[in-house]
């Protein structure tokens, strides 16, 4: 296990008390992680010593700011085994996934005018299909619904088993020659399930489809090498992995980044501009219009260095141990049901549950009254809740700064909730 006491000391917020003096027990890292001092220092230092417009100026500060921004890109790309120029910065994973979805709808619209200039893999129409899963975060569902509304393509999805795993029995018929895009979540934020994305991506490539992975809940929690996922594009967020709010990532192969038309357009992403027409810079600049989130990139790089110092294998082991402990503790509580895999095989540490006779919102409220912060609701995966016949869940999602004491506090809170509402 990690040295949690030492790690906690690096996170100022974890010293807080809430709700009238209760020490904070933060178990909502699946929503957003807390930030170590090193990240806050890196951001501040950037503003105090380096801040200037990047890629636009020739003066000393502008050069230093550009260096800081591009050095951050190298660090973050290296963290997932990627080349710096294959990494695009966005504001969050939602923008990253929308960027990909808009590549399809934009290519489709542009091809109506000038089909020759557009990569046909990105052009969709009636008869084409996009395949996702029934456990997607809304961020990897709604953008594809919108693409379908705009292009006439059909959305399909891999169904779930009652345990909250993908049912892959129909994989080869669901992903067929009509399929142009396959986009799946690596680790579910609500169920904790880790999906066999490599197998799904390989099937996507068999039929010539583009493969996309939503790695929001995997890059922060386990070693991830983008090449091993077998995808063309991988999206994730900075704020769930110790980084600041306001920065996300999109990795892509050189091939797909070159093929995709730009998304946001404006300054810094152009090659030539006249009033009549413009040409665009190569990736990643092509996808980074406007003044970027420079301080946030620098902060995220500091977060990545912090994780690298711990070692991502150690992080994954730590979370595995916490997941085992949590699953055992919850299994021992009468009236508590896990929503998602019961075993620790191919599952992460985010654990959803429901309590008989209690609404998840009320469970969360009792935990909160004891200083324990968990997430309640549909976790932006509403269809997943419906499929598993729950209106919502309560979710414990620990990270590097949590230990079994924190889990114990959550478990004690569940028991207290049962007692308070008189259901146990």
């Amino acid at each position: 296990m990690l040295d949690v006491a030492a790690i906690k000391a690096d996170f100022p917020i974890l010293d807080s008390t809430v709700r009238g003096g209760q020490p904070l027990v933060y178990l909502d890292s699946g929503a957003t992680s807390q930030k170590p001092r090193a990240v806050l220092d890196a951001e501040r230092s950037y503003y105090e010593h380096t801040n200037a417009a990047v890629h636009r100026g020739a003066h000393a500060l502008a050069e230093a700011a550009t260096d800081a921004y591009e050095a951050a890109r190298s660090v973050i790309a290296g963290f997932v085994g990627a080349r710096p120029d294959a990494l695009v910065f966005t504001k969050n994973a939602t923008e990253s996934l929308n960027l990909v979805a808009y590549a399809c709808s934009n290519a489709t619209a542009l091809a109506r005018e000038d089909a020759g200039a557009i990569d046909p893999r990105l052009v969709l129409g009636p008869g084409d299909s996009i395949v996702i899963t029934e456990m997607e975060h809304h961020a990897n569902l709604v953008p594809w619904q919108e693409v379908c509304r705009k292009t006439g393509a059909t959305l399909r999805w891999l169904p779930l088993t009652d345990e909250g795993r993908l049912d892959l029995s129909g994989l080869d018929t669901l992903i067929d020659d009509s399929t142009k895009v396959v986009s799946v979540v690596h680790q579910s934020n609500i169920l904790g399930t880790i999906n066999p994305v490599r197998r799904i991506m390989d099937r996507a490539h068999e039929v010539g489809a583009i493969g996309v992975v939503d790695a929001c809940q995997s890059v922060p929690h386990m070693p991830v090498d983008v090449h091993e996922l077998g995808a063309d594009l991988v999206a994730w967020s900075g704020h769930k992995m110790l980084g600041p709010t306001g920065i996300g990532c999109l990795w892509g192969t050189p091939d797909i980044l070159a093929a995709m038309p730009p998304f946001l357009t404006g300054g810094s992403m152009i090659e030539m501009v006249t009033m009549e027409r413009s040409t665009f810079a190569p990736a990643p600049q092509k996808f980074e219009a406007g003044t970027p989130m420079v301080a946030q990139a620098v902060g995220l790089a500091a977060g990545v260095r912090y994780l690298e110092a711990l070692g991502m294998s150690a992080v994954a082991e730590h979370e595995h141990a916490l997941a085992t402990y949590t699953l055992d503790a919850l299994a021992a509580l009468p009236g508590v049901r896990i929503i998602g895999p019961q075993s620790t095989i191919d599952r992460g540490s985010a654990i959803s549950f429901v309590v008989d006779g209690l609404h998840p919102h009320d469970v969360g409220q009792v935990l909160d009254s004891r200083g324990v912060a968990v997430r309640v609701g549909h976790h932006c995966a509403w269809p997943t809740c419906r499929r598993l016949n729950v209106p919502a869940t309560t979710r414990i999602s620990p990270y590097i700064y949590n230990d079994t004491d924190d889990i114990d506090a959550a478990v004690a809170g569940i028991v207290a909730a049962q007692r308070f509402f008189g259901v146990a």
Partner: protein
Amino acid sequence: MDLESLYQDIILDHYKHPRGRGLLEHPLGSAFHVNPTCGDEITMQVARDADGGLELGYDGQGCSISQASASVLVELLEGGTVEHSEAVRLAFVALMHAQGAGEPDEEVLGDAIAFAGVAKFPARVKCALLAWMALQDAEIQAGLLTTGEQP
């Protein structure tokens, strides 16, 4: 934190023993509202009873606050006039937005004053208001209310 100030006994009682739950056979107006953050759902329906008073029906799923609030609403307003329902609704909305500093008028609000503590929990205010927002929409749909002013 004082869990009891949030979950007053009246609330828990309405949650466990909802009054008047169930949908109407011939609603004049019906509105389905949902809390997008947590998924709480309420369908609220209105009609006229034989004496011209309000007839109310509802169904839904969600947390104790959202469901108890619907039950209290029905108990308070069933059989009354539309004007009365509107007065109570406005008083309840005001109480919820008072952030715990409101002085609830028990005369008007009846059991609904039990929700005063909810106003201190911004994330729960939406739960408490859900049924009341749906009521307004249902009354508008039924042609009983004309203005759709959101307070």
